[in-house]
């Protein structure tokens, strides 16, 4: 009778791994790629990434992919290609954010019929290559001159919003009415759904992202909360920020010695999805640099000043009007520094006397003493 056991009642475990969504953020900063051009030209890198994308699509039947370019002056989708404004009106969907939902929309240009290529692969490839060419054509020298860095922050938020949207769309929809039910008892229904596991891969070539500290950090925390690992493939340059991103979200950090072997790095380290990663030893950043960048000058600081209200970091105490730039609270930084701790010994005595009178071990009585100690030394 052991066979009739409550435990094997819902044995409907899905055998296959859950589908995974890979969002690649490709740093397309022309400055940085120009530096790399001797060992790894951008075209080769793109070709390698396309093969990697195909390999990812082949690894699971329901796997999907999104590619976002973090360019020098903007971040934009390479795949799925954004639908055009005029087309959007035709469709009649008026909910503003259709732009990034173009998963099923075919790009307007036709895909060449190639009998030597698996059709889904060529669809993705054509779209990526076309939007990439378009992006490069639209880049003017003026844009490049203005900034040497790349819009990682914007690209990360695009990636996160795309993942959020795809996850919602992917959840099996039973019927419209059931959505309300699902909202009501989300605890139970969530467990039923086959989740879409998502991850972000940042192929980064440019350094110094400190001027985007705040948006990037916010994206990292959002990713951490949503349990989306951020993998970093650092081909050139070094930034504190991205290392922290992979560390905080449990992603992979790799800084290959030899950028020429890009494809093998991608295939071996970055291809396994969340399911496979539970069984594999994945490379990660050894020592992580946890330094933060200040909010006032976007510099990486070792020791800084922190606003007691909103925890913003500043590298100097000379803030305009003694008001925190982020939250506007009045910070009496100067008074804290100026006032000598002259009164503290007196206070101490007083407290002791009080302590002798009543219970000496009250926590309230001991706190000022504790706070006074560092001033003594």
């Amino acid at each position, binding site marked *: 009778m052991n066979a009739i056991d409550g435990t094997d009642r819902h044995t409907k475990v899905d055998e296959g791994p859950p589908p995974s969504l890979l969002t690649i953020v490709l740093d397309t900063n022309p400055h940085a790629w120009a530096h790399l051009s001797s060992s790894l030209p951008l075209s080769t890198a793109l070709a390698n990434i396309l093969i990697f994308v195909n390999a990812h699509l082949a690894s699971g*039947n329901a796997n999907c992919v999104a590619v976002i370019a973090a360019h020098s002056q903007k971040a934009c989708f390479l795949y799925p290609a954004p639908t055009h404004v005029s087309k959007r009106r035709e469709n009649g969907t008026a909910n503003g954010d259709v732009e990034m939902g173009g998963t099923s929309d075919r790009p307007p240009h036709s895909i060449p019929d190639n009998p030597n290529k698996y059709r889904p692969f060529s669809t993705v490839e054509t779209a990526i290559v076309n939007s990439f060419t378009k992006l490069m054509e639209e880049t003017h020298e003026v844009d490049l001159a203005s900034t040497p860095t790349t819009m990682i922050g914007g690209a990360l938020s695009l990636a996160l919003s795309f993942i959020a949207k795809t996850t919602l769309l*992917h959840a099996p929809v039973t019927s419209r009415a059931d959505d309300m039910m699902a909202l009501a008892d989300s605890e139970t229904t969530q467990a039923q759904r086959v989740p879409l596991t998502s991850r972000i891969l940042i192929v980064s070539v440019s350094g110094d992202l400190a001027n985007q500290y705040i948006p990037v950090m916010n994206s990292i925390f959002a990713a951490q909360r949503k349990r989306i690992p951020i993998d970093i493939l650092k081909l050139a340059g070094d930034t504190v920020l991205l290392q922290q991103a992979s560390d905080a979200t449990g992603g992979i950090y790799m800084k290959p010695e030899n950028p020429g072997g890009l494809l093998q790095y991608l295939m071996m380290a970055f291809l396994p999805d969340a399911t496979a990663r539970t069984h594999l030893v994945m490379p990660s950043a050894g020592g992580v640099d946890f330094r933060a960048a200040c909010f006032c000058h976007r510099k990486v600081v070792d020791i800084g000043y922190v606003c007691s209200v909103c925890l913003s970091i500043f590298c100097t105490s000379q803030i305009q009007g003694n008001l925190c730039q982020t939250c506007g609270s009045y910070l009496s930084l100067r008074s804290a520094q100026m006032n000598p701790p002259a009164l503290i010994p007196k206070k101490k005595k007083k407290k002791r006397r009080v302590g002798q009178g009543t219970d000496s071990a009250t926590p309230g009585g001991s706190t000022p003493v504790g706070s006074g100690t560092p001033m003594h030394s």
Partner: protein
Amino acid sequence: MSASSSQALEYLEQLPLQTHKKLYEQPSTVLAIFRCMLPHLAKSIVMALLYIPQPLSSFDLDAWFRPSASRLKKDSLYILEKLHIVEAKPRDTSRFTDYSLAPGFSKSLRQALEGSGRHGSFGVPAPPTEKRKVTIQELDDYAQGQWESLLFYMVGSTVGFHGSVGGDIGEGTKKLLQGGGFVAKNHGKIGITRTGFMFVLQDTNAQVWSLLIEYLKYVDNLGLGMSETDVLSFLFMLGSLELGQDYSTSTLSPTQTQMLDDLTAFGIVYMSHKGAKTFYPTRLAVTLTSDSGALSTTNPNEVVAPGTGATKKGFIIVETNYRLYAYTNSLLQIAVLSLFTKLTTRFPNLVSGKLTRASIARAVQTGISASQIISYLDAHAHPQMQKAVPFIPPTVTDQIRLWELEGERVETTNGYMLKEFQSEKDYREIVKYAEDLGVLVWRGDAEKKLFVDRIEQLQDVLKRQAARRR
């Protein structure tokens, strides 16, 4: 890996090296095998090995896998070696093994990923013509009609239904179903067999695969000169085609042209007339190399697969008092339900009945197992039922199992008994190894006997032990 592709995997595993080598010449075949036959970790291994310049030693491989995953690693490598995808060569003067991909496989997989070569194995689209193209809806209708009439042929005659749902099925198909043991002729009347039941209760994707594997065996026995590899690679090619696109028949081999007629009869491909210059793959074909789950795509407007259409929606309500209501008017579904339910009433869009001891016992006698019934009910549970976890009331599932157990109290496992070990140490080693592999069914420490359900992997250890003794 879904249940459907595991059948195909089993079939593939037993093919000889030569057949594998020939199969791997086609990039579409290689890609299809990679996509849907291999276990998840095996895919990671293959991809890691694909572009690596020198072989990967077992030492590095061990370092790559977590110690807790060693069993999974062993399983993956076993399948890869069995399919002749990975070649293992012992490295001289050390105890490590070098792993590399079979050259043919890696070449084809690279071609598939890169889209290089001029093999045309992903189907040559027909040149655009003036003629009207067949729409996807028409293809779906056709496929569904053909497939349902095939299923109805098996089920309907057993439960005594008359008439047909789509149209009559061809003589060849009938022969194939009999040859595969899905139906048997009893006193001149067609009756469904145990394998047939299993077939009917599977999801559509798995059904297509089982039928095609029977077909493979069938053409092999018939000796029509149709080569196995040709047939297989054509099937894999069909899986990678695009729905709604017509393809030219001009590049197909004679075997494959011959196959087209049979596949048209199953509803897997559509041809406007016999000997047409173009063919359309139907949804049954294009989902061959993908899980049926892959159909629940992000696009809500997408038409669901034929046959599985009702599956996706779900139509069965089972109450704790064993009453069953099924919102369907499909003759096929009613026929399947009547295999294990005592149906009482039929309305235009609803049938109702009851699961009784007698009805379950009858089903069990004819060869359906309780778990098959439960999984059928589970898979087709009405959305209203799907809000509870588990979908089917536990009391009902338990009772169905109990009813089944009344009939059979002995469980049998086919396998191998190992006994008469030379030493306690040998025995321990084998038991440990068998346990690690998950093939151990029973062990008797006192008599140094054990029973395993698969022996292939154990043989290496046995040989090693024998060699040590000598």
